[in-house]
C-alpha cells in the first residue's frame, strides 16, 4: 500500500509552528545534536505555556494543541 507521508508533514508543521511562535531559529553550523536540543527546548517551552506535560518531545496532545486555530502573534518575545 501507499506509504504515509503524515509523520514527515507533521515534522515540517511542528518546525514551522515553533519558528513562528517560539522563535526557533535555523541551524547555524552547530552539531546536529545542538539543533535537536533547541527543538526539544522549544517544544518544552510551548508545552509549559499551554499547561501540557513538559517532556520536550512531541506527542499527540502537543500536536493537537498546535493544530488548533489561533492568533498569529508569537507567544514569546522575538
Amino acid at each position: 500500500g501507499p506509504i504515509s507521508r503524515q509523520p514527515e508533514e507533521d515534522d515540517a508543521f511542528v518546525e514551522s509552528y515553533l519558528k513562528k511562535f517560539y522563535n526557533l531559529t535555523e541551524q547555524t553550523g552547530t552539531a546536529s545534536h545542538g539543533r535537536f536540543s533547541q527543538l526539544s527546548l522549544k517544544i518544552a517551552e510551548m508545552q509549559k505555556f499551554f499547561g501540557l506535560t513538559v517532556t520536550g518531545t512531541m506527542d499527540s496532545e502537543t500536536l493537537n494543541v498546535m493544530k488548533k486555530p489561533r492568533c498569529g502573534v508569537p507567544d514569546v518575545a522575538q
Partner: protein
Amino acid sequence: YSTFGEGLKWKTNELTYRIENYTPDMTAAEVDDSIEKALQVWARVTPLRFTRIYSGTADIMISFGAGSHGDFYPFDGPDGTLAHAFAPSAGIGGDAHFDEDENFTFRSTNGYVLFLVAAHEFGHSLGLSHSSDPGALMYPMYSYRDPNSFVLPKDDVNGIQSLYGSNTNV
C-alpha cells in the same frame, strides 16, 4: 497576562481606527459593529477612547487579506492562524490584519466570530502579549464565547489596567 517588552503602550488615551476594507463573509454593517464592540471591550475598563476615521492613517489600521498581504507575516490559508496585530508604535504598530481565508461570522458558531478575534487582536494593538491563562481573552487559541454576554475576563482587565489604569467614568 503579559505585556510587550517594558510596558510598551500608547502615549495617548485618544486613539483612532480605520477599517480599510471588508470581508465578503459578513455585511459591512456587521463588520463595523463587530469592530466597534471589540474596541469597546477595552474602552469599558480603561481611559482609552476610540474614534473612527475614514481616510488617512489611523493609529489602528484594520484590514482583511489572504496569504502575503503586505507585511512579512503571510497568512496560511483556512484555519491555523486567524489574524495578527502589532504592538503600539508608529507606522504598522497597532494595526490588525485578519486572514481573509477564514470564514468570519457575526454571531454564528459556524465560523470564527469576528468580534472575538478582533477583541483579542486589539489587545495586542494596545500592548498586551499572550496570556497563559486559558480563560483569558489574550490566550492565543480561539474559543467560542457568546458575544451577547461577553465580559472581559479578570486576567485581561488586570493586564490592560496595568498599562493604562482604570476607567474613571464608571
